């Protein structure tokens, strides 16, 4: 299992489009993935699950990935966070 602490860096936070991007990035990987924020752990491969976090700009979230391709999945998600979910702000 890999844990990575990430911070929501885009202006709008984990809103619908950002969440959809995250779920799409994770979809090809077979590992389990969860996000934890504000004391709540959700399935990071579920759009409504991630939206339940209602995580705004600057919120720290913990990514947990567990499975054979966990390293690649963690890198992919970290990259997406660094790119601010491919949004411009």
């Amino acid at each position, binding site marked *: 299992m890999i844990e990575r602490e990430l911070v929501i860096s885009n202006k709008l936070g984990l809103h619908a489009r950002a969440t959809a991007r995250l779920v799409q990035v994770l979809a090809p990987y077979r590992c389990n993935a969860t996000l934890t924020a504000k004391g709540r752990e959700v399935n990071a491969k579920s*759009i*409504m699950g991630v939206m339940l976090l209602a995580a705004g700009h600057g919120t720290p979230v913990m990514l947990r990935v567990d499975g054979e391709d966990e390293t690649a999945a963690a890198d992919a998600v970290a990259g997406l966070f660094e790119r601010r979910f491919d949004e411009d702000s």
Partner: protein
Amino acid sequence: MAVGILLISHSGIGSALVAAASTMLRNLPLQVEAFEVPFDGDPDHLLPLASSALRRVDGGDGVLVLTDLYGATPSNLAAKLARIGTPVRRVSGLSLPMLLRVLNYPELTIDALPAVAAAGARNGVLHDDA
């Protein structure tokens, strides 16, 4: 394996949901079309139109038909549509969470998708006072 998705709704609802889902997901992983029933529509004229919409989304693995209001004309039309041959499963209570969840499971079969759709809609309702 690719199931088609047909939204059958009252005017203005289905196409708006498809547009919102397309913006969020960019490329939809399944064939999705909205068929909207006007309030003064004649059900006999609507059936052939709905049937051609059904054929357009049908990739040969069945079509999941999502309707907005159980018992209303669009869902009654969907019931008729289900009897014309193409394997059709129907779920009512169409919402954006329902549509997004279905599109998050594009690899599933027509028999598995109704439960996915229903759970999506159910889980989308939250008492939002926290």
